[in-house]
């Protein structure tokens, strides 16, 4: 059999230079030292050949109730602690337990890991673990020929096959001849391993995902200690279940080691990342930590007002666990109350935050407008998902940009910050807090479902390298006559003073009605309203943000690809791929979408063609065209899934080709 790297290169080569020929070039690899301590048998490689690979993409797929997300998470943790670079893509239905064995009920988790720096969860899996016929059928179209498929044969019953419309058994009808098929009776083997556990059949069967994890852990030399401790901790109150899971996990490992079904195992050496201390982190966790860090670095108590919504709820869960940081979390009666409470807390001097997704933003719009008018710091975190309306709750999209930009009555400008990778959600939270506190304004933090649930290694920052945020509360009168004017602005930032209740002499009333410049008293004066509208806009336009950086190694590129948010990974992978094949393309990525970096117009004008890939129908492109009068070209996809690198590389080649053709005319 050929190596997996050959397979992946032949078909997807998802990440440009990531697809460079690795040492796993089809020859049997050098014998590597034994990997992790064997959980129940000899070390991997003890009896079988080992091949060295530079990267692997694995997808675990099964029923929503099969524990695929947990299996994927565990494999990710093993992989992270081993030191590979990695990127993950969980993909699951909105239904908690969709009907068993059906295509809509399939839940999957894809993991890409490598011995070098990678950017995406990979276009196409090298290995599919399919726990039932539905999982096979739903995922097979994504597999390149030659990929390995591990199926749980116990689930391939006539009834299960008929349920998903297989006329014949794909395991025997020759339709999988182009793949390396491993037929494993996972359920039977799990039950056999647990026959002395005392568990009922139904409970024992549930450990089959751990059997599969054990098998894959053997195949890829993953450390096993972490998973065993995890299982014992997770089921601390049910030791019998804990031991059964550990037993199934070990049985899967031993099965790989002893059976002839698996002739070789693979090694993917650790990646050479920049020096530092690392951990694996998902976007929502990084964002939660960024919020806590912003509270600590500003000295403001963090106050989250939120209403549960997919895919943002994890932030509420995470922050509610850190009350010893003085973090207050308030699960409100609705989205409106969530932001209302956060705004009320901000009036009292807290770092007010609300977390939600697109439908929640729609409900919060009026309060965001109030925050614009009150000019109080407030963070509005939108973990975007497929829309409109309820849309695709568990799938990713970038279609809330214009809602964040314009979705309010009146002229109500709000700064927008968008992280590009899961780990960057940490920095984005700090940046959003800096803008909110410095300029006394609500700020949108636009993440998405892909960043939220995806994970990657993160170099853990030192606390004292994090930016400090100075709230600069008003402490006394700001008028010579001893009066306090709540709308007397800092001429540099145009920010108004933030005077907290409890400060004597600064009693003041603010509201959503138009205010007189300076005094903040109610004013319906036409000229004053015109002035205030322009001033609020000028304050946002004047926010200092970093210039956009352009990556154009030769300086000769004629095509610029510009993205924002989570498309960073696939765009960068596509750019690497084009360059590896001799193409020239410049890349830039926006983290600040309102205001845009000051140099953006000049950057756009210095290229003959600007391509803007977005997971929407062209929202950033619309803004760029309107503001800079440049012919930015959209490339769009709204499939609820991230772009694939290969797909974007084709788009970039086409753009380069168009210019070349024009030259030859």
């Amino acid at each position: 059999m050929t190596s997996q790297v050959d397979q992946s290169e032949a078909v997807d080569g998802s990440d440009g230079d990531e697809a460079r020929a690795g040492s796993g070039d089809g020859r049997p690899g050098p014998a590597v030292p034994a990997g992790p301590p064997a959980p129940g048998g000899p070390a991997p490689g003890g009896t079988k050949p080992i091949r060295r690979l530079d990267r692997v993409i694995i997808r675990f797929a099964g029923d929503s109730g099969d524990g695929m997300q947990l299996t994927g998470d565990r494999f990710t943790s093993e992989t992270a602690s081993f030191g590979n670079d990695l990127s993950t893509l969980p993909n699951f239905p909105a239904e908690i337990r969709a009907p068993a064995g059906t295509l809509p009920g399939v839940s999957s988790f894809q993991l890409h890991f490598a011995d070098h720096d990678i950017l995406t969860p990979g276009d196409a899996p090298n290995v599919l673990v399919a726990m039932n016929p539905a999982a096979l059928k739903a995922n097979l179209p994504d597999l390149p020929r030659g990929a390995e498929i591990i199926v749980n044969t116990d689930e391939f019953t006539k009834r299960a096959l008929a349920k998903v419309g297989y006329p014949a058994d794909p395991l025997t009808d020759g339709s999988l001849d182009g793949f390396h098929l491993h037929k494993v009776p996972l359920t039977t083997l799990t039950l056999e391993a647990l026959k002395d556990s005392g568990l009922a059949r139904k409970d024992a069967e549930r450990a089959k995902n751990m059997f599969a994890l054990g098998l894959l852990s053997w195949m890829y030399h993953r450390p096993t200690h972490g998973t065993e401790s995890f299982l014992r901790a997770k089921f601390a109150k049910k030791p019998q279940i804990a031991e059964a899971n550990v037993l199934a996990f070990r049985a899967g490992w031993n099965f790989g080691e002893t059976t002839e079904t698996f002739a070789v195992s693979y090694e993917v050496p650790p990646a050479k990342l920049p020096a530092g201390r690392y951990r694996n982190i998902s976007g929502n966790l990084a964002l939660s930590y960024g919020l806590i860090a912003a509270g600590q670095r500003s000295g403001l108590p963090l106050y989250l007002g939120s209403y549960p919504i997919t895919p943002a709820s994890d932030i509420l869960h995470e922050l509610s666990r850190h009350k010893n940081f003085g973090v207050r979390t308030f699960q409100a009666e609705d989205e409106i109350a969530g932001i209302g409470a956060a705004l009320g807390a901000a009036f009292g001097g807290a770092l007010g935050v609300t977390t939600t997704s697109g439908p929640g933003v729609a409900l919060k719009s009026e309060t965001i407008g109030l925050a614009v008018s009150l000019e109080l710091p407030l963070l509005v975190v939108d973990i975007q998902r497929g829309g409109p309306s309820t849309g695709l709750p568990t799938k990713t999209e970038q279609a809330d940009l214009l809602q964040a930009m314009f979705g309010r009555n009146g002229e109500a400008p709000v700064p927008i910050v968008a992280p590009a990778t899961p780990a960057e959600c940490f920095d984005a939270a700090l940046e959003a807090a800096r803008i909110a506190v410095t300029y006394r304004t609500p700020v949108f933090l636009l993440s998405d479902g892909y960043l939220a649930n995806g994970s990657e290694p993160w170099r853990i920052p030192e606390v004292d390298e994090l930016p400090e945020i100075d709230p600069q509360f008003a402490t006394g009168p700001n008028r010579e006559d001893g009066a306090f004017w709540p709308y007397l602005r800092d001429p540099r930032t145009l920010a108004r003073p933030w005077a907290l209740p409890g400060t004597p002499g600064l009693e003041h009333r603010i509201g959503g009605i138009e205010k007189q410049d300076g005094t903040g008293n109610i004013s319906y004066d036409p000229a004053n309203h015109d002035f205030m509208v322009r001033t609020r806009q000028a304050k946002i336009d004047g926010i200092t943000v970093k210039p956009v950086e352009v990556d154009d190694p030769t300086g000769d590129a004629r095509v610029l690809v510009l993205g924002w948010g989570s498309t960073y990974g696939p765009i960068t992978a596509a750019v690497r791929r084009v360059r590896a094949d001799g193409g020239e393309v410049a890349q830039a990525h926006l983290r600040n979408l309102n205001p845009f970096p000051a140099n953006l117009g000049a950057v756009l004008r210095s290229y003959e063609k600007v391509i803007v890939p977005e997971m929407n129908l062209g929202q950033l492109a619309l803004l760029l065209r309107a503001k800079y009068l440049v012919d930015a070209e959209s490339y769009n996809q709204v499939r609820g899934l991230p772009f694939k690198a290969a797909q974007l590389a084709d788009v970039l080649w086409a753009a380069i080709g168009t210019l070349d053709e024009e030259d030859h005319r």
Partner: protein
Amino acid sequence: MSDHRFPSLRLVPKDEAPQSARDFKTDQEVRWCPGCGDYAILAAVQSFMPELGIKRENTVFVSGIGCSSRFPYYMNTYGVHSIHGRAPAIATGLATARQDLSVWVVTGDGDALSIGGNHLIHALRRNVNLKILLFNNRIYGLTKGQYSPTSELGKITKSTPMGSLDAPFNPLSLAIGAEATFVARTIDSDRQHLQSVLRAAAEHEGTALVEIYQNCNIFNDGAFEVLKDAGTREEALIRLEHGRAIRFGAEGANGVFRGADGELFTAPVTAANEAEVLVHDAHAAGPATAFALSRIADADTLHHTPIGVLRSVERPVYDELMASQLATAAAHRGPGDLAGLLAGNDTWTVD
């Protein structure tokens, strides 16, 4: 702090200097219609506030939208005039973030019971330390005269030329049903009674709902006249006092009784039934009697309308529970260690 005049305000800084109603007036011109009941309520609140004995700067008034919601502009404290219906939500955030503040919500029947109904009931069940003053004039004033959720069925208004089809809310029944721990009613024109209810509300720990019958002399003039007119009020009003027999009318000629079916009814008090007159127990654990009292008035004539504190019971206060969880977490796990949090338990080092 124990010598606070109001132990419920023990976390709010005291003010030793004497205060007067004048201290609570702002330089803003009051812009309600001449003759509006809101003037009387404003004056009553301004002259009551010094009684609290707390720092003026630690007092905050939060309102929504509507005529009543202009109230904060006229109080020389901190204040937020927010958006329609959302004042309880905004005040909840403020009160739970800052236990050293005395937070008051001013709202109306449309603001609190229509667009903001959800926030009101949830504030009440949570028992956040808020004092909610609900000005009920049974009409929409600021939008110029549409029926409100407390308008009577069949009411002819600009939006209901053939009469309103909506059955009205009974705000106090609603509040009791929403697990409110303090429910009271008073009338704009009776300053002494109004202030006695404010006093009881301020003494209460947790959310207090005070319904204030307020006259809109432009769009619903005389809605509560029967409760105010010297010739009718004695018969129409039931003044509740905790621990006292519930009697009303000239020389207490009438009383409230409990029938064999458990329902409350009013009847003339005689020598034979005098011992059976219901004694008001605002602190009764169960809400049933308070609920029955909230509905004893005749919906059409407003005869035998109870005013005063219908219900005042103790229940843990949300903001105290929240603060105590923070303190417990800090005691068990120590103050937050950011570096430790960021690193987590599962790290590796690249040289």
